[in-house]
């Protein structure tokens, strides 16, 4: 199929302002958008800059704004996006070069929720037991690949960049609902802070944006509920 790819470009070493690059080429309808970006970089303009690695939706490198919605370039096929596609960097993070944004800010929020199992009890010689039912309670939120698509799709985050954001809450949920974790109270305190979970206005953009199909809003709701029914 004949493709037109319109890409928001910005190179701080050259450009005063961002500009739109337009690229036309032949592609297979079953190609991924990432294949199309690679085609532009490899054959039309070698200066085009973006992140990519696994190319099948598990590493989280290539989240971007695609036809106005967040997604992973390697998980979307051209035939489902149309012959004219607009690609921009994710909203709300500082643009460094073309589609590549500053992720430090995002990982700071992740680190703030203590994203690791906290235990005080002695470890058994073998595994801790956990029933399949208990394991299931946080299964959905273990899928997160930290791509940033949910947080940068969230109007509450755009309005207030200090908001911890859906991705960090998803990762807090993953531990709060893990029967083995003993750090629930400290994490709930973080979630209960001014920039915590209450900033969520249940807009559902995050659910739509998540390339892993995580029901982010439900996870946020479960964290809110845990706070409401918390023993004082």
């Amino acid at each position, binding site marked *: 199929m004949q493709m037109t790819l319109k890409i928001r470009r910005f*190179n701080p070493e*050259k450009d005063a302002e961002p500009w739109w690059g337009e690229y036309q080429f032949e592609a297979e309808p079953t190609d991924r958008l990432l294949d199309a970006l690679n085609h532009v970089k*490899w054959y039309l303009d*070698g200066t085009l800059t973006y992140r990519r690695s*696994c190319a099948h939706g598990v590493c989280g490198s290539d989240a971007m704004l695609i036809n106005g919605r967040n997604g992973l370039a390697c998980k979307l096929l051209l035939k489902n996006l149309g012959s004219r596609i607009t690609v921009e960097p994710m909203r709300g993070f500082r643009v460094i070069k073309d589609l590549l944004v500053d992720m430090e800010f995002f990982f700071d929020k992740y680190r703030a929720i203590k994203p*690791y199992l906290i235990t005080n009890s002695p470890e058994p010689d073998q595994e801790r037991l*956990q029933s399949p039912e208990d394991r299931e309670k946080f299964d959905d939120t273990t899928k997160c690949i930290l791509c940033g698509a949910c947080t940068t799709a969230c109007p509450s985050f755009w309005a207030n960049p200090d908001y911890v954001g859906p991705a960090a809450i998803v990762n807090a949920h993953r531990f709060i609902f893990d029967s*083995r974790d003993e750090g629930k109270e400290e994490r709930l305190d973080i979630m209960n802070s001014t920039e915590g979970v209450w900033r969520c206005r249940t807009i559902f953009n995050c659910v739509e944006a998540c390339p892993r199909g995580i029901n982010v809003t439900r996870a946020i709701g479960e964290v809110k509920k845990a706070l409401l029914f918390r023993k004082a």
Partner: protein
Amino acid sequence: MVHRYDALIIGAGGAGLMAALQLSSHGRVAAISKLYPTRSHTGAAQGGIGAALGNHEEDHWEWHMFDTVKGSDYLADQDAVEILCREAIETVYDLEHWGLPFSRTPEGKIAQRPFGGHTREFGKAPVRRSCYAADRTGHMILQTMYQQCLKNQVHFYDEYHVLDLLIEQGRCAGVVALCLATGELHTFHAKAVVFATGGCGRMFSVTSNAHALTGDGMGVVLRRGIPLEDMEFFQFHPTGIYKMGILLSEAARGEGSVLRNKNGERFMERYAPTLLDLAPRDMVSRAIYREIREGRGIGGKNYVHLDMTHLGREVLDMKLPDITDFVRTYLGIEPAKELIPVQPTAHYAMGGIPTDNDGRVVIDEKHTPLPGLYAAGETACVSVHGANRLGTNSLVDILVFGRRSGRHAARFIKENDLPPLSAKPEERSREIIARLLSSQGQERGADIRESLQNEMMDKASVFRDAGTLMAMREKLKEIRDRYANVKIEDRGAKYNTQLLEIFELGILIDLADVLVEGALARQESRGAHSREDFPKRDDANFLKHTLAYLGPRGIQLAYKPVTVTRFEPKERKY
């Protein structure tokens, strides 16, 4: 800019993070990675990590050891395999204690499932040994290890690309890396360095490997005179999505899927009557190639079908959700109802930087270590995989030997001072970058890379012979000439990803050379190295490891013996 640390980890996948975690309480430690750590390819591993926990049925590390040795076609060093299989068990418990969300048995134990080549009682029948978290075990390992490193305050340099290894007075003295954000060179001066940079599958056109897997660590040490071991052994995983190479885990077959040719025949019955579709990967990949060659590919094309239709939606959604999603996303196929087109995909380098059982890099046939230098994971060759790796053993390898490297390095940094550093440690890296950035050449890097990948796939993949390998050797000369004339369009400093792609391509060409020379010299068929002109294994002449050095006159080969302890080489049948 010079940074000083006690220890450096290069690469932040499972092996690197495990080594970093072990070192974190023993000194100042930094992990340097060209990606954000959570982007590492460990995260793409699906099916599980092998350990004889015996949670469903009787199992023993000795059985795991036998399977690994037999799977390796007897090329693995058996002392190392013994460590792998013994320590796999405590390593899996460690992961669980660190919070890894394993799938569970009804009693709440870690769930296990069958995997290719893993058997009970020395080959009698498949055994449930692969400990899994749905079909995203690697993702969970990567997340868990990264979480633990954050907890233990490992210092990360994210998006720094290592260009050179520093060796001073016979000791490893650190590395030079390019900061992608600024384009500046940074010297990292340290007592110990652990390379854990992963594999090099991007030298082939059809691969399960991430774009980032260009063998940087292997190439950087090779260029500093350190040999690479057994690089002619490259694993092709039988079930990559046709044309795209995206992996469909062996767990699919572990859960009962089967391979079928154009007649609908379950052809593995003819190739491996006991283990059938769960035979080791080298055998299944060869069987698929044979079916295709003999005209039994689907529609006369070069693929066969993976049949998951009888598993039912519940098994697919509960146990194989990610690969089910891949099939739906990339092929538009419903795996509960339709057959999936698959072909072998370049997956794993059995070879790599030679190490001893503590991850110390050994630089010659006499196992002489280079003090302060370590390697672990796919970039290393201990060798626990020999000529063919069993499924699940890569995750065991990264953790067991990542840990041993980290622990040994922790002792090393206590007992040693910082080595001297030359006056101009960045000189060589500066030259490489300056040469590439000032190139006036006209050859597109993408064209050169495509030639390399297509030719390697055609001439040096599942089947090889002297004719195809000699032809590949000639092609590589041509590719090298074209590379000398490579074109650069981005001459900027910040996030110059074109410059990096060209650097990575240079490494891939060096590694392809090593693979081809090793394969030409090895006049036998063993594991993943299948020579049509020498179809039999030849223990009398080739029960030995290849060491390939990059010298002024190209690749020079040497050999070292295989360590055999418990299991004498026998014919390999399944």
